[in-house]
């Protein structure tokens, strides 16, 4: 099980409070974690990644163990501390206001 922290708006959309816990099958990569999250909370499809291309939406950021993984490829393995649930995987709405 990995722990995932969603931004407030997506927590409201998925109707969850606080962190969510997701079972990821196979190697725990960035893409696999997002696949599992969307499979568990299908309402989030399209809100983090594009429906078709699966590209990260421009103002979404991914952090793991204080590392910014936003620009990393989907096959990037998440750190062990994320895999074993010690640390949460963070999905963040970017600071993009004005």
């Amino acid at each position: 099980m990995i722990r995932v922290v969603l931004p407030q708006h997506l927590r409201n959309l998925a109707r969850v409070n606080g962190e969510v816990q997701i079972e990821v099958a196979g190697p725990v990569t960035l893409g696999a974690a997002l696949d599992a999250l969307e499979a568990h909370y299908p309402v989030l499809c399209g809100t983090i990644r594009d429906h078709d291309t699966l590209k990260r939406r421009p103002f979404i950021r991914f952090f793991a163990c204080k590392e910014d993984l936003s620009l990393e490829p989907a096959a990037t393995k998440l750190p062990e501390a994320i895999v074993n649930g010690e640390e949460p995987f963070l999905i963040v709405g970017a600071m993009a206001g004005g």
Partner: protein
Amino acid sequence: MSKIRVLVGTKKGAFILTSDGKRKSWKVNGPHFAGWEIYHVKGSPADPNRIYASQTSGWFGQIIQRSDDGGNTWNTPGSNPEELKSPEGFPKGESNKFVYVGKAGTHKWYDGTQHPWEFKRVWHIEPSLSDPDTAYAGVEDAAIFKTSNGGRTWQELPGLRGTKGHLWQPGAGGMAVHTILLDPKNPKRIYVAISAGGCFRTDDGGKTWKPITRGLKSPYELPDPDAEVGHCVHRIALHPSRPDVLFMQKHWDVLRTDNAGEQWREVSGDLPSDFGFPIDVHAHEPETIFVVPIKSDSEHYPPDGKLRVYRSQTGGNEWEPLTKGLPQKDCYVNVLRDAMAVDSLEPCGVYFGTTGGQVYASANGGNSWDPIVRDLPAVYSVEVQVLR
């Protein structure tokens, strides 16, 4: 006694305003979807408790919301527990999937080159006049989508983009299908309008479309007097008793057509400005129309700081300012294209919202106005339902 429900989309959420038929005392309910941009909220004429909302965000993209109880509770279509009990269940998360048919192709970009079509958001949802589960969505980049299952899934009607779409070019506000009018006498006929794209009509339910822009003039931007696309249409409106007569607020000029768009003629007449966004038709008087003149395309506020609705009772050309109850000094708000609506009570009610967060209502066909709420976020859209 009838009740009135006003559905307001704003920059930071949706609000539902309710009153009895006197339209004097109002309750404000909201914000729904707080913090999200709500481009449009509209109820089904066939089932007033069925309401669709377009919820969007620069961060998280497009969400479609639906209420089946008049706005008390909302679900993304397909995720309602009652729907999931159906034998086939339903894959959730499809209700916000707007994917262009086939290879998306390209349209004209600001520098004259071709640019890929990219879905951004739903500007307008037009529910069917007869079926609560059917609705049309006007989206940016400009296209029209249809749902026949209450918003669970949406399919593009690609014939619209096939109508010289490669020549459409976004304006400063984006390139969106912002107006969809359904002909109440001919279910196969639909009109749409696109800023900097033009005006189009289908007579076969959306398979094929034709530009209906003859008579529109945009001499500097479009020197070709026969240009079929590229006109900056801000809004079109019709009266249900006479769907071949359309009124248009264009980037410049107010126009009308008496033959379903085959030929337009200017009826700006004595308006103080020929720029503006909304236009609407009185519920009981097909020749009475309302506009809100705005000073030029670069300033986007009322002339002289006076917020005035202009009414023509002659189908255009002769206009009178309606000012009673509206601020007549130091007012620099705008009224956006989807932010005006009329109700069908007697006398006709007229409503509009401003970018300053006020929603004004007139319970007497525009003769006098009252703010029914003052301090909302910038208003994007206003729709009205009469509940009998």
